[in-house]
Each structure stands twice: as C-alpha cells, then as structure tokens.
C-alpha cells in the first residue's frame, strides 16, 4: 500500500449518476485487477473505497456512482484537482485458475473492476465472454470498451429495453465456460452463486473504516474463518463464501 497525491486528468459523466475519473501520478502500488483505492474527500472524514477499473504506468481509472456526499464531491472535481489516495488495496482477481474460457458477470457499478480483468485474461490468450447487467438501456456503459478488448459481450436489462430481458443469470444458460468472475450488488452475486456451473470468484463491496485491514470494520464470516473484505478480499472464491 502507498499513500500518493494524484491529479485528476479527466472526470466525465458516462450515464446519469455514473462518472469516470482518471487520476495521474505514481500508481505502481497497484498490482492486480480487482484491487481498490481509498480516496480522501475534502471536508469529509473517512476515505471512500472505489474499485480500480483500469491502470497503467502513470494513471488509474475509476468509475463511480454518485450515491452520497463523498461521491457528490468527487463528481465536482475538475481537471488538475488533486486527491490524497491510498493505493494497492485488496487482493484482486486470480486469473491463473480461469481455464480457457472465462465468463465475466457484472451488474451496474459492479462492471468497472471487470474491465482490467478482461484485458488481462485476453492478454493471457483466454476466450472471454462478458455479460453486463443494467436496469435499463440508458444506464448501459462500457459495452463497447469490452468489445474493443476482444471479448464477446452480452447485455441484460431488467426492463428489456436492450439485450436480454432480466438479470445476468438469464443470459448464461447456453454459455460453455471454464470459470467465472463476478462483481455487482449482493442479490446479483447470490443469484450467480446459485446459477453458476463452475468455480469462480466474487468481488464484494462494504462500508469500510480504514480499507487496509486495521479496524475490523468490514469483517465477514467465510467457510475458512473470519475475513476482512478490505484486506483478505474484496475478492473471495465461491468455495470461501458462506451462503
């Protein structure tokens, strides 16, 4: 983990309430897809944990939904503004166990961490199918970006206004996959847990105190004892989850 001052290079609205921010600076503490960063928000006390959508040598991209005061302040940030950020947090996804055909299932604001994962899996020569679930057509983001990486993309919407009507689990029955990765709201994760035919990895979200394993604010019970979502997660294997 490192503490760095990062500079906003871009902060744009993708769809209603969903923003993409690119932060530049020293980001080499980020080692893996599925990690998160913890951002200090001026005028607020606790940092806000946001998943890493993508990263390279000099920048980190995050996609966030405006849900409260912290993300409201973030949405106001302009190019050139700076944030105090802790980076290199969480375990991230393990791609070594994916086999040849990975299935990625993302719901709403759970979509972003799958982007760098998808990039990594494809660079490892694996076939990737991405299923992105949203409530309605005008909430869809990043479908083209996943396609540009070389993944096959399917869309589901709850109201049927685009793609398959229903949830991500309604679009995977005919898919032949060796392993899955998922991130999204907990009801979706539970549905994936039930529907999945292989082993896989789930990324969780939680209210956190510190974000680096010190305060026990985000503890959960697993089949392998108590774990901290921030430090031992946020990614857990299907085998670990106590559902």
């Amino acid at each position, binding site marked *: *983990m490192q*503490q760095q001052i990062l500079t906003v290079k871009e902060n744009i609205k993708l769809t209603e309430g969903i923003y993409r921010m690119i932060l530049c600076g020293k980001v080499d503490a980020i080692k893996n897809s599925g990690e998160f960063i913890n951002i*200090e928000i001026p005028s*607020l*006390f*606790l*940092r806000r944990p946001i998943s890493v959508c993508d990263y390279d040598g000099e920048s980190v991209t995050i996609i966030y939904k405006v849900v409260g*005061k*912290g993300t409201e302040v973030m949405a106001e940030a302009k190019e050139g503004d700076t944030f105090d950020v*802790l980076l290199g947090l969480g375990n991230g996804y393990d791609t070594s166990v994916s086999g040849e055909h990975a299935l990625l299932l993302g719901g709403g604001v759970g979509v972003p961490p799958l982007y760098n994962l998808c990039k990594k899996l494809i660079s490892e020569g694996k076939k990737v199918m991405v299923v992105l679930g949203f409530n309605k057509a005008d909430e869809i983001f990043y479908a083209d970006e996943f396609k540009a990486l070389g993944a096959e993309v399917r869309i589901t919407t709850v109201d049927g206004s685009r793609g398959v009507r229903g949830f991500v689990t309604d679009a995977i029955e005919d898919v032949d996959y060796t392993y899955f990765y998922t991130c999204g709201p907990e009801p979706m994760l539970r549905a994936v847990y039930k529907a999945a035919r292989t082993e896989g990895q789930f990324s969780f979200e*939680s*209210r*956190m*105190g*510190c974000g*680096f*394993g*010190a*305060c*026990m*604010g*985000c*503890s*959960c*019970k697993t089949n392998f004892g*108590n774990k901290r979502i921030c*430090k031992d997660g946020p990614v857990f294997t299907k085998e670990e989850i106590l559902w």
Partner: protein
Amino acid sequence: MVNMKLTLAGVEIDNPVIPASGTFGYGQEFSELYDINCLGTFSFKGTTAEARFGNPTPRIAECTAGMINAVGLQNPGVEAVKAVELPEMKKFFHKPVMANVCGFSLEEYAHVCERLDDEEQIGWFEINVSCPNVHGGGMSFGTSAQAAGEVVKAVKKVTSKPVIIKLSPNVTDIVSIAKECEAQGADGISMINTMLGMRIDLKTKKPVIANKMGGFSGPAIKPVALRMVYQVYEAVSIPIVGMGGLMCAEDVIEMMLAGATAVEVGTANLVDPFVCKKMVDELPAVMEKYGIKNLKDIIGGAH
C-alpha cells in the same frame, strides 16, 4: 536538541505517541508501511478469553469530523494471541507492547491477564472497562466506580506488570471512577474511550450501524477528551494516557498540557495510516516552536 523520553507507569518510552487499541491490530499491517519501532509503544487489539467475531455489519459510519464504530471486540482470543500474534509481533516490534484486555466478567479479565502475564514483551496491561457486563445486566464495568475498582483489584492479583485502566467517557462523574481505580491499585489511567453515538440513514430511515449505536471518535471529541483529562489530572497522582481525536503533533502537546504523560492515537490511523510516524517525526520541531526542551516538563502544564 529536545528530549521526548518519558516514563509511563515505571516503563521508559522514547516518545509519547502510542497507537490506540482497535486501530492498529497487532501491528502487522502497519509494520508493512513503516518501522513501527519509532513509536513510544502501541496498544494491541482488545483481547478476550475466547475468539469473538463481533457485531454484524455495517459497523462503521461517517460523522462530521469523526466516525462511529461498533466492531464489538472482534479478536482471535487470548490463546491465539499467545500462539500466533505475539510470536509474529516479536519479528517486527522490539519494544515493550501494551496489552489491551477486555472481559465480560471479573474472572475473564483476570484469566486473560494471567495468561498474558508471562509474555516478556508485554510492558503494560491496558484494561478496557467499557464493554458490556453480562453479570450486571448489561451495565458496563466502566460506568460504576465500584465495578471499575473491582476489575483493577482482580487484575492486580494476577500480574506484577503495570495496570492501566481505560475509562469510558459515557459517565456522569469520570473523576470518581478514576479515583476509585487509583485507590484499588491502578498504575495508570487511559482515557477517553469512544463516546456513545448514532447516525440515521435518511433513505432507509434506520440507524446506519447494524448495532444501532456505536462509539463516536475522531477530532470532534478532542475538546471533551481534553476536559476530562484535565479534570482527572487534578484528582489522581497516577499517570494518564490521554486520547480522543488527536490528529497531529500539536494535539500531542495540547493533551500533555491537559495532564497526559503519554497519548494514544486511534481514529487518525484509519484515515492516515502514516499519522503516528508523522507525529513522532514532527514533534521535535513543534516542541522547538513552543520553546519546549523536555517533554516531561509540560505534563499538566495547563493547570
């Protein structure tokens, strides 16, 4: 050159900065960030007889200039602390450590201290008397002078190490509780633990925290902590470890002027994991700025 060395209940410390229990684990996470031997010491996670998961989540809520937590004493239990945490800690921390102990009965406090008493690295016991007392119908040991005094007496019987008792601010008269603890043989007082607080979510119209209430901490409570340390300093002659919302080296000086011999830093670690190292590094310059040569000379200087 300034002198930051102090003696806390008979044990020398290089400086007054002590990360508070519950915000520093058993030191591991922070030892990966900086050499934690720069600290005066640290107080490890509150340890009970058996392993505890603690409260359901959410356990954390944001507040203006602070936060609420209701972790609920999650810890691996004293035997795992002896078998796993302390042997691990020895690899990266080479100073006497403060052992924070919690219990739900007098017997549990005494048992945990007895089991930890032979651990050489433990320099002090810090006894947390603000957890629920299952024997007393949900009252806390820390809200009654007599009950707090009984805990001190029970623990003093099983250890010869200095016993610091950590007091709750959620009481009508903290001074009388501190005096009774001193009368029963406490070697020091640490104060203040968190203040009972609540946040309510306007969307769900329910408390944010699953446990409904939790401990309010952070810079918002610093004036309360300073006032209480000031009051207790006038009433007891044993040393006080002052805490409550300290964020920087200036805050360390302020708390010592109120009457603290050393300070604990809790919530600040969660938002800035390097804050205790920064305090230690910045303290000499702040001392020079305010004409302080020897830190021990300013203890209780505001009286």
